[in-house]
């Protein structure tokens, strides 16, 4: 129940906010909103012991049971971590936002989106049904879109929102396909059922495609290389949003998914390689690029990218345990997963704090450009403290939680060398090397954050408004986070036992007792390879930071034109201009062209098949005899038809059409169809009268001045159409499988009391056709009337609609 409530409450509140906003005009609406995550957080905290004991909780509401899509909520260790993060960081962010956003902003929108996101995110982590998970997944993309575009009058906001939405939704769509494939294989959308039965499906031909598609979704969401490009642009969102969605929670949805699905795909080489390599590349690329950023938020964005890569790669490394199976010697590889979970929490704490710090700086100074900032240490001591704690933790320095998880990361990377599965051994050395190099860059940008902002030449603000420390309300949240940063370092095992242990149990179900999987975390683990690496990081990092100016030109080796951002922009622009070219090339508005396409398709598709299928057949055996006069009439009609093409006056053409009409009716006579002959005659002459009537309003036609090539192509098409109809008709005539149903109608007199069969069919057997036909006629009549009577006034004609 709690879990269902946890998902529902934010949504309910999101709906209520716009209403409440109007009610409570004096109160900052954020205070009301704050209650939501706090309550849910408390609810979840109360469940921690329950979960820590290894219990899980599940509940189902039917949504579309016929398609196996139901709201199944599921609470276990893994979702608990995320639930706590979402609500915990959420509470702090909302608290922070109350001071960050002035009451002039459209707060009701902001909080509505934020609550939507919160609900969606909780939905993602608490859903067991993959389709529902997907629904919430897309909802997070949507709410993220709205939040990024919160200041939608800014062009950059809109562009960032669009990019984020496109990339994440594309990933989402591919993930959806992957889910559908999973369902096809396993017959279930329930993650737990799939995990239970997974062994039967690993050889299924859809197994690998499904995995890749799902991973694609996870990678786009978690901003893995090369899909990371949306994340820096998403920094156009208000800072609380960046802190919340784009570092602590939403971007971790992809990681959550990878963790959640590790029991399904974990043993597969492709999974291992994709996840690990994507993670490592992202780790390196993010940290490398973070260094060159001048906007603090962009820097943090790249650092987030890099950290996400780190966590991702750890999950990849941890997945080898599935391949190896459970034994005492393989426990070591599960430690990577443990490190991932641990770092996930740590990252949320220090990155949240850092974002809030940047928000404060931005809020107070109006800029986040490191080139303009400096010397804030004395002016904003508390902010400075937050920055130092956050940065050092991120850089992996003691005494902060980042140190612990980074050491574990190094350890995991080092262990990879020893593996001889998945042909790791050949390049196993690269794992620790990449990890180490990336950490150096991480260290460098952490230095940049601290020193460029808070030391050096003081920042000069044009209007002499004094710079002072932020209001305490804004500082509360980052400080709380910093407390966690330090606290976790000191008591890591509280976290490990109560939170991470059950999560390990849910990632490695039935693998080993959770206690075995959960190591004791020590701040001091002796002088070992990891520690040496860390010391190396510090030494090289300091050197690099000091020589920053000398080696920064390296970045120019990657010209902007070839960046993924540009690639993406070019892709979209090219798509637009290309499709414009293509579409306007054939959608010319020329009726002739359209008709030509239609005829061509007819000739190619119908004619092509007909000729190649050997459907043609001809026999004149059943033909009725021909009299001479009939032949003469046929010749007259032929000539009339052909000469219609060459006559110079429309009146002559109309006359020729009349000749053809007369001809048709005489053939109706010859073919024993008196009713038809009558109708045809009358209709023909009324039509002729209509033509004449309308000619008063139309100009005499001009000679067709089309080029010869057009005329020839027209003639070829026309000939082909005619010929095709002829040969098909022959084949149809030849086909003699069935008798017509019409012999039934020869009893018309007994059945319907009519002696004229045609008329009886029209009036009775198929009277319904006649009725509708009358309707058609009526519509045409009334239509002509309206067409003539209702004319747009002259001045209206150029207007649209």
């Amino acid at each position, binding site marked *: 129940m709690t879990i269902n409530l946890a998902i529902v409450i934010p949504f309910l509140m999101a709906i209520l906010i716009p209403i409440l906003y109007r009610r409570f005009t004096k109160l900052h609406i954020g205070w009301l909103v704050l209650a939501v995550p706090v309550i849910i957080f408390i609810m979840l905290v109360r469940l921690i012991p329950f979960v820590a004991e290894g219990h899980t909780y599940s509940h189902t509401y039917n949504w579309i049971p016929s398609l196996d899509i139901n709201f199944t909520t599921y609470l276990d260790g893994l979702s608990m971590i995320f639930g706590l993060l979402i609500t915990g960081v959420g509470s702090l962010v909302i608290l922070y936002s109350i001071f960050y956003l002035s009451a002039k902003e459209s707060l009701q929108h902001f909080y509505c989106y934020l609550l939507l996101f919160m609900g969606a995110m909780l939905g993602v982590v608490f859903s067991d049904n993959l389709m529902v998970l997907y629904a919430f997944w897309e909802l997070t993309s949507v709410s993220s879109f709205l939040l990024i575009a919160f200041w939608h009058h800014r062009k950059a906001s809109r562009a960032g929102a669009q990019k984020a939405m496109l990339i994440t939704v594309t990933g989402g769509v591919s993930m959806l396909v992957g889910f559908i494939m999973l369902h096809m294989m396993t017959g279930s959308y329930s993650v737990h059922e799939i995990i239970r039965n997974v062994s039967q499906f690993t050889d299924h031909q859809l197994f690998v495609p499904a995995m890749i598609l799902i991973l694609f979704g996870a990678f786009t969401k978690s901003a893995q290389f090369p899909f990371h490009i949306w994340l820096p642009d998403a920094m156009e969102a208000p800072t609380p949003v960046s802190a919340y969605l784009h570092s602590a929670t939403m971007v971790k949805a992809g990681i959550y998914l990878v963790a959640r699905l590790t029991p399904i795909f974990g043993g597969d080489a492709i999974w291992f390689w994709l996840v690990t390599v994507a993670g490592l590349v992202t780790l390196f690329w993010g940290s490398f690029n973070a260094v060159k950023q001048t906007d603090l938020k962009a820097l943090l964005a790249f650092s987030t990218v890099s950290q996400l890569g780190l966590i991702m790669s750890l999950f990849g490394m941890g997945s080898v345990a599935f391949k190896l199976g459970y034994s005492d010697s393989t426990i070591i590889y599960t430690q990577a997963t443990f490190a991932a979970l641990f770092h996930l929490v740590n990252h949320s704490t220090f990155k949240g704090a850092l974002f809030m710090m940047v928000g404060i700086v931005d809020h107070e100074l109006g800029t986040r450009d490191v080139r303009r900032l400096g010397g804030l240490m004395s002016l904003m001591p508390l902010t400075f403290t937050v920055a130092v704690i956050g940065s050092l933790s991120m850089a992996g320095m003691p005494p902060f939680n980042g140190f612990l998880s980074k050491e574990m990361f190094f350890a995991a990377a080092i262990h990879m060398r020893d593996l001889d599965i998945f042909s790791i051994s050949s390049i196993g050395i690269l794992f620790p090397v990449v990890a180490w190099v990336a950490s150096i860059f991480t260290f460098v940008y952490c230095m940049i954050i601290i020193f460029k902002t808070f030391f050096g030449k003081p920042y000069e603000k044009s209007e002499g408004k004094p710079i002072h420390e932020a209001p305490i309300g804004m500082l509360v949240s980052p400080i709380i986070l910093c407390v966690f940063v330090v606290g976790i370092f000191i008591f890591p095992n509280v976290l490990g036992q109560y939170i991470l242990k059950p999560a390990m149990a849910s990632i490695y179900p039935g693998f080993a007792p959770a206690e075995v999987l959960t190591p004791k975390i020590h701040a001091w683990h002796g002088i070992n390879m990891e520690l040496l690496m860390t010391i190396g990081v510090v030494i090289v990092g300091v050197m690099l930071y000091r020589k920053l100016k000398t080696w920064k030109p390296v970045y120019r080796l990657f010209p902007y034109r070839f960046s993924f951002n540009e690639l993406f922009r070019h892709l979209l622009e090219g798509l637009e201009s290309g499709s414009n070219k293509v579409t306007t090339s054939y959608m010319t508005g020329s009726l002739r062209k359209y008709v030509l396409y239609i005829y061509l398709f007819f000739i190619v598709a119908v004619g092509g098949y007909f000729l190649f299928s050997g459907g043609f057949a001809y026999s004149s055996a059943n033909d009725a005899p021909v009299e001479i006069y009939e032949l*003469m009439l046929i010749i007259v009609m032929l000539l009339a038809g052909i000469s219609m093409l060459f006559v110079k006056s429309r009146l002559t053409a109309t006359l020729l059409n009349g000749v053809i009409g007369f001809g048709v009716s005489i053939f109706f*006579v010859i073919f024993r169809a008196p009713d038809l002959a009558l109708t045809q005659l009358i209709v023909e002459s009324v039509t002729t009268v209509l033509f004449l009537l309308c000619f008063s309003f139309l100009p005499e036609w001009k000679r067709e001045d089309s080029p010869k090539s057009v005329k020839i192509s027209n003639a070829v098409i026309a000939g082909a159409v005619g010929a095709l109809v002829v040969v098909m008709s022959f084949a149809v005539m030849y086909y003699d499988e069935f008798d017509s149903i019409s012999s039934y109608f020869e009893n018309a007199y007994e059945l319907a009391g009519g002696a004229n069969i045609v008329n009886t069919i029209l009036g009775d057997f198929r009277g319904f056709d006649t009725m509708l036909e009358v309707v058609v006629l009526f519509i045409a009549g009334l239509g002509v009337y309206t067409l003539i009577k209702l004319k747009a006034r002259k001045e209206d004609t150029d207007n649209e609609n």
Partner: protein
Amino acid sequence: MKETILLISLTLFALTIMVAFFRVLRGPSMPDRVVGLDMIGVNLLSMIAIISIVLKTKAFLEVILILGILSFIGTIAFSKYLERGTIVERKSDH
């Protein structure tokens, strides 16, 4: 014998139609063409009468009458169009 004569007549009428059609095609003036069409109509009328005899049915006798009416209407319409450009007037002009 009767049949043969009827067939010959039919053929002759058809021949006339061809000639009339030649007029429709060649003109030279528009009224020539209209005369041609009128003539086609009238000859068709005869042909239908003969075909009725050949087919031994009275079903087409209505067609004869209708054809007569319609070729008349057609001729009026065409000649009026040639003469005045419009074929239905709104108000009586006298």
